[in-house]
């Protein structure tokens, strides 16, 4: 479980995150949603330590992230997995070497065991045959899956995903969403996903945090999204005609 308590972050006098507090629970896919520029990327970067908030606390299962020393921070980092927007696979390594990288750096298992674990992770994301290929030789969806395999290689407690569906077609997006959700439940991880993909919200949103102009505007589950009266949330989620029609149908079903 990750607890975020009153975090505030400013850049050159402009406050991007204003006093945000929330809880991301174990075994759930926690989604941070909001318009571009709303502060969700800054929020996830503060949570994973790529940025430091001006004030507030971040607790990883009770451990104060911002008060950790170098050694404690290093230990915690080994419990984290991250899926970047552009996958961030290492160009100079094959897919298998990418998945083996965290194991090679931190695992004390034998070389054969490390390889076996990497192959298992690749198999888990249906990439068993792509191990010998380089990132430049595979598709965007395969790159995302390879990045997920790398992120789960060390059995992390916490998984972070920055816009996992960006640049993917709807069907592949759905596959990636399902994969992340299944892995979260399977390993009982605390997963935090930064997205503005509405299909993801309706598909895997166990816990949704809606951010507007740096402020937490709304929090709830995917079923609560449909019935929410929050105008800003409705304007954002149901911006398209198709989404509005979907909401109307869902609301009618609930009434009957």
């Amino acid at each position, binding site marked *: 479980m990750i607890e975020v308590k009153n975090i505030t972050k400013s850049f050159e006098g402009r406050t991007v995150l204003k006093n945000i507090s929330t809880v991301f629970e174990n075994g759930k896919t926690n989604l941070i949603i909001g318009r571009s520029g709303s502060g969700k990327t800054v929020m996830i970067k503060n949570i994973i330590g*790529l940025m430091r908030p001006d004030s507030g606390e971040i607790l990883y299962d009770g451990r104060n992230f911002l008060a950790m020393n170098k050694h404690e921070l290093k230990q915690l*980092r*080994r419990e984290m997995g991250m899926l*970047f927007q552009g996958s*961030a696979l*290492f*160009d*100079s390594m094959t897919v298998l070497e990418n998945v083996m990288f965290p194991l090679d750096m*931190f695992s004390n298992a034998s070389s054969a065991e490390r390889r076996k674990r990497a192959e298992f992770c690749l198999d888990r994301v249906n990439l068993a045959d792509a191990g010998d290929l380089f990132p430049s030789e595979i598709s965007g969806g395969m790159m995302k899956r390879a990045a997920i395999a790398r992120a789960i290689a060390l059995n992390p407690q916490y998984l*972070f995903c920055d816009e996992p569906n960006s640049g993917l077609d709807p069907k592949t997006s759905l596959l990636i969403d399902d994969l992340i959700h299944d892995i979260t439940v399977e390993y009982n991880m605390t997963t935090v996903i930064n997205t503005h993909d509405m299909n993801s919200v309706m598909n895997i949103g166990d816990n949704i945090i809606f951010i507007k102009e740096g402020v937490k505007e709304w929090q709830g589950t995917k079923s609560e999204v449909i019935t929410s009266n929050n105008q800003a949330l409705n304007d954002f989620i149901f911006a398209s005609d198709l989404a509005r029609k979907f909401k109307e149908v869902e609301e009618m079903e609930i009434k009957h």
Partner: protein
Amino acid sequence: MGEYVLLMKKSITFPDRWSMFFKQLIKEIYKLGVDSLWIVIIISAFIGTVIAIQISLNISSPLIPKFTIGYTTREIILLEFSSSIMCLILAGKVGSNIASEIGTMRVTEQIDAMEIMGVNSANFLILPKIIGMMVFIPVLVIFSMFVGILGGIAASYSTSTGMTPASFEFGLQFYFTQFYVWYSIIKSVVYAFIISSIASYFGYNVKGGALEVGKASTNAVVMSSVMILLADVILTHLMLT
């Protein structure tokens, strides 16, 4: 300057995993060093030949003995060409390679990915490049000396230059000072550090996209070249005067 020192402090520490460090080191030696061998050989052979021809054409005086051509060619190659000029050329080839590689890793979040995993990215990426360059550039310099002098010997076989192979070889051995070879090697080790560390600094601190990676690459080459020339003056003063 402060950022550069902090980056070097972060880079020059004991690696998290020695096995991974040595794997990277071998890769870097091959990529930055062995792959530069052909350009060193080609440039050294031609420049060695040209130096010998130029000297023979410009000191065609009956008062100056012919072996002076071999002697002067040797001194130029040993003292300046194979170390300083060759490293200026390598600053262009290797420096831009390092800056663009690390810069691209920065803008595509590959460095962030390492940091999230708890890997000291500066140490993992930069230290093998620095050590690899410091180990292999002296080898390239020795190759350059050897091939450059062979180029001069080849020129001595040309009848139009007025020198003979025998006089050229006598000049090569005349008043040979072994320390000059060491002087050149020591300079090259310092230049290797300058090229790899400055290029890494510019690459590691890229912010933005492809345009900034290009700028970082250019800045790395310019700054490394200037620092090599400055180091040349300082080292020459310290070691030869």
